[in-house]
């Protein structure tokens, strides 16, 4: 069954006055993903198309983009399942565009890195398993793949350019949940800011859009709960800033 789908792709090169969209027809099979289609465009129709990708399996987080107005990872987005005659592909929101579908992740990481969350965390044990002798616990990577999809989906990130953002705040809460040597008070102070955890207005778009089950909004709310709890437990006789 020969099938093609039309793709309308956001194009922009540095020096351009404004972006525009280019239209491409791409042959699509049952397993074809948006990333497959875009790399096919680059290979056979337009080698000037720039896009980020690396792992092809939702692990590196580099292929985040907006497909038909929704943030997704292109490598796991099946074209046929989108069910539209024309697929519109645009870069993530709330990030500077370098070219075409490539955004500058600098501002994202500037915030994310401030939380200083370690990359590796304790792993859930497979039910019924016991770690090897001498091994206190199994470990695995954190869920967050730093794709920037949550920040793109967040309406607050759209209006407040200094908002810490869902990814960084989720990272702060992970530090509070599982410190592993990180500076918990520092991380919490970072979040306890008008442009930190208090800026969130509970749209929960970040949690719905996240491709890696991080639940950033859930983390932000838990963070709020623990920040309030910490203030509450400080007795009136104790000066603010006293160390525990």
């Amino acid at each position: 069954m020969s099938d093609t789908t039309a793709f309308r792709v956001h194009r922009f090169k540095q020096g351009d006055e404004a972006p525009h969209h280019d239209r491409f027809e791409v042959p699509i099979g049952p397993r074809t993903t948006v990333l497959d289609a875009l790399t096919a465009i680059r290979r056979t129709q337009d080698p000037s198309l720039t896009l980020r990708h690396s792992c092809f399996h939702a692990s590196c987080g580099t292929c985040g983009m907006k497909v038909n107005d929704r943030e997704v990872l292109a490598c796991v987005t099946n074209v046929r399942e989108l069910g539209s005659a024309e697929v519109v592909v645009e870069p993530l929101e709330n990030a500077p565009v370098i070219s075409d579908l490539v955004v500058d992740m600098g501002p994202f990481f500037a915030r994310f890195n401030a939380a200083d969350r370690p990359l590796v965390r304790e792993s859930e044990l497979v039910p019924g398993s016991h770690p090897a002798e001498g091994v206190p616990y199994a470990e695995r990577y954190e869920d967050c793949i730093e794709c920037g999809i949550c920040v793109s989906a967040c309406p607050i990130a759209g209006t407040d350019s200094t908002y810490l953002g869902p990814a960084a705040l989720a990272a702060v809460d992970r530090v509070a949940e599982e410190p592993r040597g990180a500076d918990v008070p520092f991380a919490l102070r970072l979040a306890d800011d008008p442009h930190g955890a208090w800026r969130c207005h509970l749209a929960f778009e970040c949690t719905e859009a996240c491709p890696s089950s991080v639940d950033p909004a859930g983390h932000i709310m838990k963070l709020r709960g623990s920040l309030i709890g910490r203030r509450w437990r400080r007795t009136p006789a104790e000066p603010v800033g006293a160390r525990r």
Partner: protein
Amino acid sequence: MNATYRSPAPHVVIVGGGGTGGALALDLVLRGIRVTLVERGEITSGTTGRHHGLLHSGARYAVNDAESAVECIEENQLLRRVAPGSFEENDGLFVGIDDEDMAYGEKLFTACGETGIPARWLTPAEALRLEPNLNPALKGAIQVPDATFDAMRLPLRWFATARSNGATIQPFCEVNELIVRDACVMGVRGRDHRTEKDFEIGADLVVNAAGPWAEKVAAMAGVDVPIQPSPGVLLALRGRLCNMVVNRMHKSGDGDIVVPQRALSIVGTSSWVVEDPDDLGVPEDHVQRMYAEGAKIIPAVRSAPFRQAWSAARPLIGSRGASTGRELSRTFKCFDHRESDGVEGFVTISGGKATTARAMAETTANVVSGKLGIDAPCRTRDTVLLPHTAYYAA
């Protein structure tokens, strides 16, 4: 971006932004050499980013390729020191399902001893206690120091550290032409796809680290580097079916490894050969083979929800004529084209595997330094790397 003026520190251009290119950029800048790396896409967007993330203990090669095995175990231990916090360090198992496996296991255990790979036998009960999802009919297992690493994020640490030490990393810059004059490579020309304008970079030496595309780049200098792109299919399933890497205790074959990675389980891999590394395809029968073979070591593979199936092309060195790619060597090779083809100023590094990228870079950097008359030792064995997050935020 430079013309060819004389300066005290020589300038090397690396073509190819995969793990090898990144590790090489770091090695060279730490020796005081100026580096510009150009990559046509996002860094690690070639083969490097796509593998299953196995940090080899070397056991997979111990029986048939002792040289590779020793390379692996050395890098395995070294990388944990220079890139701490970048691995799921849960060890690995080789699991024997039938008598043939167990016979291979005897050879494997001996070979591990000979190549310096820590190994210990486990009874089926012990193995199932560690990993309850293993095939309950297993006959025995060997525990080895396999680990998981993130295929993109570990190399990103080389790039981040190289950049902070002065290397210039230019993604989305595609080299179309090598500047060759009197059988000497003097630089590269290409197009910066961020601006859609051409660029030209002069160099004292150009390194071809383009992985499966190395043959294409070498041809730009008129030299032939026999690279046979050999893809394999990988399958990502939702759910963490094991914490340890699980291998089949037999000679290398399809679908004989399950690598846990974050919240996924990666089953791999297969092998065939292609001509064009840009057009690999994902053969459906290979995907089904991943399910079938993977289920022999972890039955839950059969019913785990599908996340994705994709292909990655190994850059195997060897002549044409191989039929599956498994016959070609997995070690790496560094070609000084003055010796092999009479072309000065041009070096190609290819072959190898992700676990040994740093070692490949060290060998190449030794060759490059020698050619440039730079007498500086390799420092990547001891330099602790910046975190991967420093790459984009720097």
